[in-house]
């Protein structure tokens, strides 16, 4: 029954991916990353995505720190963080996160602090959703690799 397990897991993965595409959470750049993964670099996607998570959380912390400061006025710095966040999000195909960054940047260019705070909340929410879903995806993939590696017992 292990063979069926592999197929079922692959179907689960595809279903989740299709959902994320349909929701606009991911775009074709994510597929491009998957195409870059092969036997010579079997964990490429999760490696890049983990770097993205690490950097994104730093950026989110910086953004929140800046905006929560009572004497905050450095919208330019917000813009710099957002450009970084936008760039890396687009590079991994995180479409919805990137789009929120665009709206966030517009608010910061208008020196709109309330708008920035709202955008930050939305950004944290979208990022959380993305991270959970990608973890789910990698988990299914891991299960699939394990299931595919298990051999049937030899009949003597």
């Amino acid at each position, binding site marked *: 029954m292990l063979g069926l397990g592999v197929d079922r897991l692959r179907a689960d993965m595809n279903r989740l991916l299709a959902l994320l595409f349909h929701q606009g959470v991911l775009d074709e*750049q994510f597929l*491009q*990353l998957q*195409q*870059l993964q*092969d036997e010579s*670099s079997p964990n*490429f996607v999760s*490696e*890049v995505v983990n*770097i*993205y998570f690490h*950097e994104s959380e730093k950026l989110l912390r910086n953004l929140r720190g800046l905006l929560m400061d009572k004497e905050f006025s450095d919208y330019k710095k917000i813009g710099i963080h957002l*450009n*970084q966040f*936008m*760039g*890396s999000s*687009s*590079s*991994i*195909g995180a479409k919805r996160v990137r789009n929120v960054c*665009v709206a966030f940047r*517009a608010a910061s260019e208008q020196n709109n602090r309330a708008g920035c705070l709202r955008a930050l909340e939305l950004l944290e929410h979208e990022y959380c959703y993305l991270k959970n879903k990608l973890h789910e995806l990698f988990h299914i993939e891991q299960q699939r690799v394990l299931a595919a590696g298990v051999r049937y017992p030899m009949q003597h």
Partner: protein
Amino acid sequence: MERNVVVSRRRKTETTAATAAKIDGFDVLPAGSEEAHVLAVDDSLVDRKVIERLLKISSFKVTAVDSGRRALQFLGLDEEKTSSVGFDGLKVDLIITDYCMPGMTGYELLKKIKESSNFREIPVVIMSSENILTRIDRCLEEGAEDFIVKPVKLADVKRLKDYMMREVRIESESNMNKRKSCCDLTESEPSISSSSSSSSSSSSESPLRTPISSSAPSSPTPLDSPIRRLKMTPTE
């Protein structure tokens, strides 16, 4: 006389000088030369990982650095160093750099490279997440080979081979047609597939910047323009 001859316009280094010979005005390298070496410059670690993988999977050797300053150091162009030769001895066949970087922008890096007598011949490609026409024009005017809008895809990287100092394979004499057309290429005007400044190519040899698979020269068309190849995504 039958022989396989690989003709390359790569900048000569110590390793190739020993084996290169001059035949009919072209530098000749033994067939099966090493992979092209690309210097990738991007301050984003995510982007560095991606571009590195894109390049490796396309059979390039890659060195990835995080700033224009480090790129210049790698080339040996840093003001603080007196040497004018890349200290690690590896020649660079193409530089691909992000535009927006803290400190030195990709544009400033491009200018420094084009101002250098040693390195101005290295093709430079700019990457940017912003599709701003004035920015693109500035870079192309300064001598960039192409301008890629991020996110960078495999198709973009495969195109980079077109900007390398070209290799043209001349088959044995029995394969007359191919050889003839290759000779035709050398005699006719080179087809311009980019708007790179030609001030650097003042030598008598005309640059063989034609696609490897072509058997006949084509006059430059709007389709060859780098602008057409840009992803015309709407600006925010």
